[in-house]
């Protein structure tokens, strides 16, 4: 074909730069604005005590959201994390309660058991090739049942005992509650994995264009299974923190947690289609949800309306994501 002119590299216009910046820091901006508004409209919001409360509240969903971010990045989803939290906390406390293992090893065992669920998820999704929604819906039900069976063996409730748990619950480090410290530490680790390791790079590649990744020699099956394992391991750690937070494990523990995690991920700007998203924005997403729920609690709004609001937050985030994508592709 005849060519009339050589193509120019796309120049960045001022409007585009602002949009880039918004993409990167938009979520942080929203969080700051919310903090400002809430602090100004209510007395008890902007206190150290409340800040610590918020951090304690968001720690578990935020940690579970790390694994969820990775799973969504590769284009999948994991609806079983809430049940895995129940399962792993029931497992570790049962082991402790019945004197099978001392606290430390019991915790590790509980977390590893969680990882096993992730392995099952991964294999069913990648090797047997059943859709992630179906598989994790199934494990969500089955694993909750498993966790409840463990509780049932122990007379329906499990008391949480152990110095590790009480320490996590009560202690702070530099004014930060321990759960929050653990949360931040895990986010740092996740950030390193996703941005500084070959594995992390491969995750983005698989999510961005799985076919192209395969053609580049990436073992997509193995990597995707590993992601599901990591996600469940995260839920296992969530089980540890859940034990620390509650004085007893009951059958309803962890219910709905998967949706809190998904909300945080979507609010953080990660696309459900995969390949796009940053884990550091997920924690801001979790923070935003935490801020809104905390505010509603202070204002005395019923917990159920809070739940309903969460649903609408997901919609709002998805809408914004859709609009920004439409604009950038035009």
């Amino acid at each position, binding site marked *: 074909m005849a060519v009339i002119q050589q193509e120019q590299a796309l120049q960045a216009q001022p409007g585009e730069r602002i949009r880039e910046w918004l993409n990167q820091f938009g979520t942080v901006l929203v969080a700051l604005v919310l903090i400002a508004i809430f602090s100004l409209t209510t007395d008890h919001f902007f206190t150290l005590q409340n800040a610590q409360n918020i951090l304690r509240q968001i720690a578990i969903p935020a940690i579970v959201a790390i694994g969820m971010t990775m799973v969504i990045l590769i284009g999948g989803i994991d609806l079983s994390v809430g049940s895995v939290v129940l399962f792993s906390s029931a497992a570790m406390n049962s082991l402790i309660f019945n004197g099978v293992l001392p606290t430390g090893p019991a915790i590790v065992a509980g977390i590893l058991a969680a990882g096993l669920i992730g392995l099952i998820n991964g294999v069913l999704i990648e090797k047997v090739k059943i859709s992630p929604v179906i598989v994790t819906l*199934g494990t969500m039900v089955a694993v909750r049942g498993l966790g409840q069976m463990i509780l049932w063996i122990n007379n329906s409730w499990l008391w949480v005992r152990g110095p590790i748990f009480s320490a996590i619950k009560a202690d702070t480090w530099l004014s930060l509650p321990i759960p929050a410290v653990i949360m931040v530490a895990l986010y740092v680790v996740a950030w390193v994995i996703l941005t500084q390791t070959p594995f992390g790079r491969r995750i983005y590649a698989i999510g961005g264009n799985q076919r192209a990744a395969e053609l580049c020699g990436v073992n997509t099956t193995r990597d995707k299974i590993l992601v599901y394992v990591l996600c469940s391991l995260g839920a296992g750690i969530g089980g540890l923190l859940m034990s620390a937070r509650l004085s007893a494990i009951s059958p309803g523990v962890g219910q709905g947690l998967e949706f809190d995690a998904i909300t945080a991920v979507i609010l953080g700007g990660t696309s459900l289609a995969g390949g796009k998203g940053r884990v550091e924005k997920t924690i801001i997403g979790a923070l935003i949800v935490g801020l809104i729920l905390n505010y509603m609690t202070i204002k005395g709004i019923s917990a159920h309306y809070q739940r309903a609001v969460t649903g609408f937050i997901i919609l709002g985030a998805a809408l914004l994501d859709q609009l920004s994508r439409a604009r950038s592709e035009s």
Partner: protein
Amino acid sequence: MIESETTLRRRTMIGRFVQNYGLGIMTVLMIAIFAVVNDNFLTVSNFQNVLEQNAALAIVAVGVTFGIISKAIDLSPGSVIALVGVIIGLIFVGTGSIGVALVGGVLSAMLIGLFNGTLIAKLGINPVIVTLAAYIWARGLALALTEKDSIVIRSPAVGFMNTRFFGIISPPMILIVLAYLLGFFVLYRTKLGRYTYALGGDEHAAKQSGVPVDAYKIGIFLLSGFLVGIAAIITISRMGAAEPNAVFGLELDAIAAVIIGGTSLSGGEGGLRQTIFGVLFLAILNNGLSTMGLRDASFYFFKGLVILSALFIEVTGRRMLREAEAAAASAPNI
């Protein structure tokens, strides 16, 4: 990748066998096991129980079938039933008229369907997100509006729904039949049904042929909403009250039923014939496990296990068949 002819032929045979008989065999096996464990299982009254306890599931599954064929999965039915139940309860308490309440309920169910459908069709948001959000907010609203209490509905209509005419047939059963008749008619004889398959087959090609894709996507959600409304009516009449925690997890059952029955998640194929078998399978499973005395924990565990196994068998069989057929199409001599 070198494959021999015999392997291909064997896979085709296995795949076809599983597709046609897999579900039937599993169901029979299940019935056998339950019958052995529980004397009361194979009785007429238990069979009526099976139908009535799972009437909501059966009706919701019709709408879910449409959704899955058209590649728009719906995760909200359970929560919407709870919410609609609450709405019916509130309207009834407020107006005293059960008729107005029921109509209002069905209309709100359709309204929610319209809402979800519009977000998906016109705004292009992923159906999983939209219906997931509805799953959350509908349940939340149901609980919030009732502060977790149930709304008792004292109306002769409730009694009516629970009577058995001639000792055998009850209104819910009739509603199931009507729902499926409606479903069959729409799916196989109307444009809505035809375009449901078209959307699932190749939305782009359908659009090119002039199919108004957006309108029909919304239409599917409206139909689904209507059926969910009917299911809500059945649910509250069984309990005599609007329970905000009702039918938790119904959507999973419905989706599992549709897929185990043989409609593929990848869209464009399957149908209500398959769904009937899937629903029967799940209904028998539900009933069998609970008559065995299993509750809560073990109930869910074994149920989850059986469902996963059934899914595994169904999906693998289909995959084997598809791969074998594709191989046959390009292989030398077959």
